[in-house]
């Protein structure tokens, strides 16, 4: 008897579930609509990699009660249906088959909507499938958009060929004052997770270096170093990391389209030798602020951004007022793009070279990233400052190192923020952060970068439930592509963060470092000056 009742209940439940789900079949009769379907996110006329997860979307129509999406190409057909909510979710296996069949060609998407007076078919749109795949993994930090306090945050890795997301590391989920910490600036060496790092701030602070699946914590501290390591870049061949070291602050606008301004008071560049646990300056200056280092793929050039600041300051005022002074002139701080040659064998640096003179055109550059083929520098250009993730004027630009020409990636840019970017290892794709969806919450957008050096219309990272783009109350921060998954467990990272103090890196001056401590405001040089570098070495412990 019980079994009978149970089977009736299960059957009824299944019947209800199946009954509620619309049938995915092309309607026999329909009329052609003049307009295109309104879909969210905008996946119309885009180029996608052949290994991307299904581009699920929402159809918006004020009167329709059911929808059918028909995707065709390469002799394959995929049908997906949606109820009144318009949420179209595609079968992963069929989607994969469709992408495989349409590689280097197009998918035609027709959408049918069931309105009170019958079915209509909207104008079809196209999705082009590129030949080249994108790196399969995307790491990002999920965090509320740009505010001062921090609580529950983590670095996550998403397999973008499907919808799997795993935490790389999450901070303390339950509040504990003695444990609360921030994590940021995750970074991989040339798209491989074999070498990775990220910073831990506040409690349990330090820089976590992961190599060969093992994590260790280091402290980049010295009286000559402004703070500790901030923006990192792994050297492609040597076991080195270039860091910027920044004294950063932020201020919140009262009545302005931009919400906040993050600015440096001072910054320098550091070189950290992972094997020897030694740190040295690359550039240490008081007038210039250097930041966002990035190695060329051959490891022989380091690109970075630099701004002059002393001309903005009244040098007669005390050091304690530097922040206030810079704050009043925040929109006059502008960064150029420079490079400095590096000899990996001798670990020596040459003389800096101006790569892009943005200041001359009253613009400012940040986040240079070299394409893995070494031909292009992708960077963000805005009206001022360096934290373009909060500047609506920010757009993506490239410099073609072969032709020495710079141009905007017009197809990829939007009127809102377009900033932090990461290349796929085949140089044909890049991911970047954009606030174009709502002006506040960054979402990762993927753009195809063709062989002629032009970007195509980008699309937002697909989600299993497309509505998640709206409902997710956190920003996707610092998207970083990688070919492989992170090789260390969250447990091991937690153990390293909580149970180790962090080994102090030995400061060892680099004789070829550029040191100019000529200003009266800013970093105070130590009294005992070590010949050429202006920094005194710490005794090895």
């Amino acid at each position, binding site marked *: 008897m019980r079994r009978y009742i149970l089977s009736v209940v299960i059957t009824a439940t299944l019947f209800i579930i199946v009954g509620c789900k619309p049938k995915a079949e092309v309607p026999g009769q329909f009329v052609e609509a003049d307009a295109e379907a309104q879909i969210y996110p905008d996946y119309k006329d885009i180029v996608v990699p052949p290994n991307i997860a299904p581009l699920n979307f929402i159809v918006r129509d004020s009167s329709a009660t059911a929808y059918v999406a028909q995707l065709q190409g390469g002799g394959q057909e995929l049908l997906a249906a949606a109820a009144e909510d318009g949420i179209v979710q595609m079968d992963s296996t069929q989607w994969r088959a469709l992408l495989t069949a349409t590689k280097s060609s197009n998918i035609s998407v027709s959408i049918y909507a069931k309105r009170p007076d019958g079915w209509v078919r909207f104008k079809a749109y196209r999705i082009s499938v590129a030949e080249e795949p994108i790196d399969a993994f995307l790491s990002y930090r999920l965090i509320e958009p740009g505010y001062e306090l*921090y609580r529950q945050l983590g670095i996550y890795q998403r397999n973008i060929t499907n919808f799997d997301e795993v935490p790389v590391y999450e901070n303390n989920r339950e509040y504990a004052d003695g444990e609360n910490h921030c994590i940021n600036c995750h970074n991989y060496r040339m798209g491989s997770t074999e070498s990775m790092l990220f910073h831990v701030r506040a409690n349990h602070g330090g820089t976590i270096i992961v190599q060969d699946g093992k994590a260790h914590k280091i402290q980049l501290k010295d009286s000559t170093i402004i703070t500790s390591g901030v923006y990192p870049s792994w050297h492609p061949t040597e076991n080195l990391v270039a860091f910027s070291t920044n004294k950063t602050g932020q201020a919140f606008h009262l009545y302005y389209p931009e919400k906040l301004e993050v600015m440096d008071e001072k910054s320098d560049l550091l070189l950290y030798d992972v094997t020897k646990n030694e740190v040295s300056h690359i550039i240490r200056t008081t007038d210039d602020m250097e930041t966002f280092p990035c190695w060329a793929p051959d490891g022989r050039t380091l690109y970075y951004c630099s701004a002059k600041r002393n001309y903005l300051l009244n040098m007669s005022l005390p050091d304690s007022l530097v922040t206030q002074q810079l704050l009043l002139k925040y929109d006059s701080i502008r960064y150029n793009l420079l490079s400095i040659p590096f000899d990996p064998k001798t670990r020596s640096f040459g003389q800096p070279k101006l790569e892009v003179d943005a200041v001359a055109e009253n613009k400012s550059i940040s986040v240079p990233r070299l394409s893995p083929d070494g031909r292009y520098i992708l960077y963000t250009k805005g009206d001022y400052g360096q934290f373009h993730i909060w500047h609506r004027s920010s757009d993506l630009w490239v410099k073609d190192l072969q032709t020495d020409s710079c141009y905007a990636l017009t197809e990829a840019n939007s009127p809102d923020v377009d900033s932090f970017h990461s290349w796929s290892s085949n140089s044909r794709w890049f991911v970047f952060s954009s606030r174009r969806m709502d002006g506040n919450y960054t979402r990762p957008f993927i753009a195809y970068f063709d062989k002629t050096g032009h970007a195509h219309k980008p699309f937002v990272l697909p989600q299993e439930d497309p509505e998640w783009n709206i409902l997710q109350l956190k920003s996707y921060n610092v998207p970083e592509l990688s070919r492989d998954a992170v090789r260390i467990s969250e447990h091991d990272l937690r153990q390293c963060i909580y149970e180790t103090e962090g080994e102090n890196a030995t400061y060892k001056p680099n004789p070829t470092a550029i040191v100019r401590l000529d200003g009266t405001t800013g970093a105070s040089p130590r009294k005992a000056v070590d010949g050429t570098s202006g920094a005194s070495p710490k005794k090895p412990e």
Partner: protein
Amino acid sequence: MSKKSIKQPQKPAQQKVAAASPKREKRLLPVLPIFFLFTWLWAAWYYGSVFYISREYSFWVADTRIMEFVLCQPYGILRYIGRAMLQLYHFPWLGGLLMALMLSAGSWLTGYCMRLRPSWRSIQYLPALVYMAVVTWHGLDIFYEARTGLIFGIPFVALLVLCIWGIIIRSFSRKPVPAFIGIPRDETPRQNRIQLLVIALCLAAIIGFDQWQRPYVRVICQLLDMEYRQDWAGIQKLARANAKMSNRPMACSYAIALVQTGQIAERLYDIRLDYDSLHINGMDWKHNNASCLYVPEGNYYGGFIESSQHACMEQMVMTGPTIRLLKLMVKCALMREEWELADKYLAVLRRVPFEGDFVKKYEPMVRRVDLVNAEPEMAMIRLTEPIHDSFENQYQQPLFMGYNLMLVEGRSQNALINSLCVCLYTKLMPQFVERLEPLVGTTPPSIIMDGIMLAENKNPGISKNFTGLNFRKPQLQTFLENMRPYMSDRAGHAYELFPRYKGYYPYYYFFGNLKATKKGYTSLSSSNSGVN
């Protein structure tokens, strides 16, 4: 099985009670239903406003992805269930009913599981009464850090455990189950009365403690409730009825109501503004004077939309989303014409039970700046928005005070009046005098007139520039003469003098808010902050 047990012969004691039952039954009262009624009254009528605000400071949607910030915490599922139950407090009588049912059922099960004899049956009510006492003891803390899942979560867990325990006992025991709704026939009238006495005494103690040690909790919550309903008259009435009670959330609500009704320069000092300490504990992120309860709203109604949004986001980072923050952020997004952002927050709110009315009211305003500007509350706020951009960091906190102290150029007369009132509130007379220029030749509002007369000392002749001051001069002179004996110990006499000079600015100038005058303001800086 159960039929068999009923047929079993009764024990002598039961027989004795049963024998006398017709006479005694008339004198027996149904204790549990009475307890249920009392609990319901407490949970809905007495403390309903506190639970209602707890719901506003909470957040629950069925979507577990959005609730991940709760589910990932220890016992996340129980917090999730607790938050779901709290949603019923959108209607305090309904939420109170659920709570009363849970507490009453828990009490009954406690008695059953502990196999309490009638003479010890009072004990069964103690866990529920202890819970009510703990809730009262915590006061504002029950929602301050949005740990609101515990409000229903704890009784739910207790009830669950008792249910399981009860089922186990029932599986092995044939004893009759004590009455749940009817007359407890196994009790003597004395036992019956003792139970009622214990319940009555405990409830009286709980309410007495609340009135004695936490009198501000219900008032603050009622004020916040009215603020969310834009009941400006109600706020003023309630605040004035509790004029001697002094705390910053109440002062802020009152000031908001006055600003919204254009009476800030007439009635601000009708309540005491000395700020007694509140029993409140945060996550140790340097809460100042329960600032989380009023800074986002204070900034919003002061015209500082960006800063309100900023404050909302900071709180959201610390506590996760709450209904109150999301609603305020919808309004901020509308005021800033960030339509997609407003859509986003509305989409989340649409999933929160019982928030349909809010969504229905504000959804049509998306992409309709004319509707935004026509909404009375928003139209009033528009009048005091800053004209020029600057940074929050340049002002003392809270911003709605700090900015108005430095105001150089205002959008309207309202902005000027707000600024003058803040100068007077902070007793910074030079700044007050500097801003009087636009009022020259007019009859200023009463508080400003009093301020001008007080400024006369250091600015001789200033009052000649305004009309209507002569009528108030004798009052000031009388006040100053009367106050002479008290001037040597102003802090000591402030409280006793308040009823006499309620609403009179010179009293505040000399006797009010003396702690703040010494300490100044503090910012919301925290060790858990940084550039993110």
